[in-house]
């Protein structure tokens, strides 16, 4: 009928239907394998109702009955702050050691890159368990874990940022006889500083959430309080702590977003 060959919709449909069927069956098998029955959430909803019944009304007395809640909030914030600051600084230094335009020795670059990759793939769970054994449970082990996690996730990003700076200014500075360190100080650092700080703010946001989770494994802070309240079945305290966590997370996110926008300038949010 027509001179041009096209894939007919009926054939397309058969392909798509096959793919759909196969994926649906695979997902179904996976669900059966894991004993996961999504419908159960609705048929067994009375469990949720019972739990909600126990959770209400939230017991906000924990805020002023004793100081432990207030301190745990401060601890979580401090963990996130210190983890971000030190992790970020170390990642910053490592990034210079791993970037082609700042580190002329290939051996150093490769060693740094391998080290960073190791940190990337090492599970946070192991890190926190090891540090809990090494320095005892408490927020300090949480801080150390966050430092490691921050280095792992940001050193590579910073390396890429450094490698992507414009080489023009650097070459100009080299050409007037400056040393490599002077080139880094006057050409590269000014160029990467805004995105470095913006990423640190983002890291603070991420680490804040992570700090809550680490608490459960002995990292201290509000996560630990939550775990305690749950394990002694004080569900009204749990509700109060969860609302506090939500507010904390939202505040940190908004603050981090606001500062990032100010640093990067409107419309350039990276």
């Amino acid at each position, binding site marked *: *009928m*027509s*001179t*041009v060959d*096209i*894939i*007919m*919709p*009926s054939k*397309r*449909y058969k392909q798509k239907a096959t793919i759909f069927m196969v994926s649906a069956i695979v997902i179904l098998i996976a669900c059966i394998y894991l004993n996961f029955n999504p419908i159960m959430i609705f048929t067994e909803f009375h469990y949720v109702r019972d739990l909600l019944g126990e959770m209400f009304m939230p017991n906000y007395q924990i805020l002023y009955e004793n100081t432990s809640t207030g301190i745990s909030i401060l601890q979580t914030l401090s963990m996130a702050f210190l983890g971000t600051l030190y992790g970020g600084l170390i990642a910053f230094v490592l990034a210079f050691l791993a970037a082609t335009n700042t580190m002329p020795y290939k051996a150093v670059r490769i060693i740094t890159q391998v080290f960073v990759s190791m940190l990337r793939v090492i599970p946070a769970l192991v890190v926190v368990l090891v540090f809990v054994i090494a320095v005892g449970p408490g927020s300090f082990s949480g801080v150390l874990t966050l430092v490691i996690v921050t280095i792992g996730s940001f050193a590579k990003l910073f390396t890429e940022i450094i490698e992507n700076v414009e080489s023009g200014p650097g070459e100009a500075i080299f050409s007037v006889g400056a040393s490599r360190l002077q080139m880094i100080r006057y050409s590269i650092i000014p160029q990467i500083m805004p995105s470095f700080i913006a990423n640190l703010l983002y890291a603070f946001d991420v680490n804040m959430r992570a700090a809550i989770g680490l608490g459960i494994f002995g990292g201290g802070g509000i996560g630990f309080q939550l775990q305690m309240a749950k394990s002694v079945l004080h569900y009204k305290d749990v509700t109060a702590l969860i609302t506090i966590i939500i507010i904390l997370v939202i505040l940190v996110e908004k603050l981090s977003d606001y500062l990032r926008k100010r640093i990067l300038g409107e419309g350039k949010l990276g």
Partner: protein
Amino acid sequence: MIEVKGLTKTLPNGRKLLNGIDFTVKKGEFVGILGPSGAGKTLTLRCLNGLLKPDEGSVLVEDEHGEKHDICQSSKKQLRHVRERIGVIFQGYHLVKRLSVLENVMIGRLGQISTIRSLVYGFTDKEAEEALLALEKVKMAHLAQNRTGSLSGGEMQRVAIARAIFQSPTLLLADEPISNLDPSNAKVIMKLIRPLSENIPVVGVFHQPEMTAKYCTRVIAIKDGQVVYDGDPKLSNKTLEDIYGEELAQMEQYEHAIPTPEIVRI
């Protein structure tokens, strides 16, 4: 046939964007709407297929059974029904860039097929062949399987026309279909639109009086939301000046100073 009566649209601050637009277009007519920028051409066209509700006035459109519908008074469902058969070619490109050219053409029938079928099965082989024929009419069949985002402006505009043809419309509206095309592509597009007007009314907005003079059967000029001219497509210099202001007359003189290809050929 489409009958437009007394369209008005007023901004909350009192500014009248449309001020009593009246015209009727019968089948067999290719009406070109001219007018300076901001005159209300796009607004008028948007009223014609119900994308914009005028404050007052009516737009009567005949559907494929010859029934007349007032677009301004239609419910959402009726409006969808009337729109099935109104082909629209927009100012700028409006195709789905990540779908293939053929799929973009077939989208033209979405209103005419059942929702369930369109979502679950998609289109039929017969529809694909018809869409291919529509593409052949605009000489785009060889690119049918390409991704639309990779086409040039002129090619996209041709696909848009193929989509309108595939709709088998009872009315065709086009907003500046040739604005961002080079002169030869613009001619190709005009030559494609022109024959469509044999069976249905065609209304197009243009910024090129020489093009409407050549291809349209009638010209309507809109200025400040009012129809200021309605009649023969060949406009006198005086009328052009009335529509576009005195700047144009000076430009004309300038244009005459450098011989355009047309003049050389004569």
